[in-house]
């Protein structure tokens, strides 16, 4: 039985891989079948992961189970659970309550209440990101861009070798001119326009490098799939 399942799994993965590759010929039923499987399985996967990790792992274990047991004990007159220890956090009910409010979207007459949890999510994301992004994306990056070239420890000389100094200057020039390009409140003319143009050159190199990396990563995935088909499935590569 185990051997059958082992073969079944290998053939299933190969069938699905070839189904996706069949799109290279044209849109066809085999591709559509694999696409439909992908959509259904992926949605189910994330639902289950969120359910066990977030709902059960965080809410149910953290507050839900204790609270429900306590309420049931009170209603039925059974022995109440022992007082909560430090692992129980009743504040988690706020999250569950907001989640339940979100489900009110399914009730057309009071569906507008689902905007409240939405406002909570947007507000807390805004509040958290404002500080975090300013610290990590703006301050840290700006600090790393403006490194000292001279140091008293080196007398009147540069504190690094020529390569590093030139590199630091290029990074400063590229970052500054790139930012000038992104500043749209002033017309890109004269010295400002010239600096913005230098910024475009740096950005183009960045996009080229990102493109090169993306192609490489896709190629490596492609090699992985071909390796699976020819090696694991057909056994042509040992």
């Amino acid at each position, binding site marked *: *039985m185990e051997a059958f399942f082992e073969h079944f799994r*290998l053939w*299933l*993965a190969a069938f*699905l*891989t070839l189904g*996706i590759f069949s*799109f290279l010929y044209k849109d066809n039923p085999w591709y*559509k*079948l694999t696409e*439909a*499987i992908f*959509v*259904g*399985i*992926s949605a*189910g*996967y994330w*639902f*289950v*992961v969120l359910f*066990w990790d*977030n709902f059960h792992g965080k809410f149910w274990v953290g507050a839900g189970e204790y609270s429900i047991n306590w309420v049931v004990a009170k209603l039925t007159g059974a022995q109440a659970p022992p007082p909560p220890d430090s692992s129980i956090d009743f504040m988690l009910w*706020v*999250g*569950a309550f907001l*989640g339940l409010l*979100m489900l009110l979207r399914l009730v057309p007459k009071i569906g507008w209440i689902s*905007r*409240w949890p*939405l*406002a909570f*999510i*947007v*507000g*807390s994301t*805004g*509040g958290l990101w*404002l500080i975090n992004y300013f610290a990590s*994306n703006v301050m840290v*990056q700006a600090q790393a*861009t403006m490194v000292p070239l001279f140091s008293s420890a080196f007398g009147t000389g540069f504190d690094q070798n020529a390569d590093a100094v030139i590199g630091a200057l290029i990074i*400063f*020039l590229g*970052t500054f001119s790139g930012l000038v390009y992104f500043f749209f409140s002033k017309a890109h003319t004269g010295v400002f326009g010239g600096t913005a143009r230098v910024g475009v050159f*740096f950005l*183009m*190199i*960045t*996009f*080229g*490098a990102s*493109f*090169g*990396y993306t*192609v*490489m990563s*896709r190629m490596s995935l492609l090699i992985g*799939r071909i390796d*699976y088909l020819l090696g694991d499935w057909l056994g042509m590569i040992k």
Partner: protein
Amino acid sequence: MFKRRIPLFILAFVGTLLIVSVFIPPMENLGEDFTLFFDIIAVFAFFLGGGNLVRIHFGKLRRRKKDWGFSIVTLVAFFFMLTIGLLKVSSVGGVWNIPLLGIGDPAAIAASPTTEGSWFQETFNYVINPLQSTMYALLAFFVASASYRAFRAKNREATLLLLAAFIILLGRTPFGMELTRWVPESFSVLQIPNMAIWIMNSPNLAGQRAILIGIGLGVVSMSLRLILGIERSYLGEDRG
């Protein structure tokens, strides 16, 4: 009043509270608590998302729309994954475990659904994983064909993009190394792999930093617009 002002108030209050909490030591964990709330709300949001998927595909089935047969496949795949994941179905060494139905080892109920040997994890390994990586691998063909059509050294900017991509691509392959192996060591910076490293560490880094700082400033201004109630599109309103 309830429909518009309360959401605006909640947003402004929560946003301001989280910003202020950073500067008040006893409140510094507030961000973590709120992130925990997010995680719980996300489950309920997924109820809506999953429900919508089922509703749309049942609708296609009922009305016998084009390709309705594939909707059956999607629904079967979705419910199959839900069943094996929520019931923690597993079979190890020929022994079946469905702990939530009292079949097999009851201790398996404590195991994560992603434990090796569970059907859920097996489906991830042999269905989701190959499908996902093949989908991305498929992009290699489209990227190659698109770049063949789009990459023309029409002006300086396009030439720079092309050159940078070309050097990075070559620099990461053994072919690139072989191509410039003849360059003497004293000019090693002109060897393609070294040029690729230099591009990544200098001009590319500068461009990345400009983009990152731009994103950071953009997020800060968007957050302020939201908290101050200028941006209201999340309420379904187009006007600011």
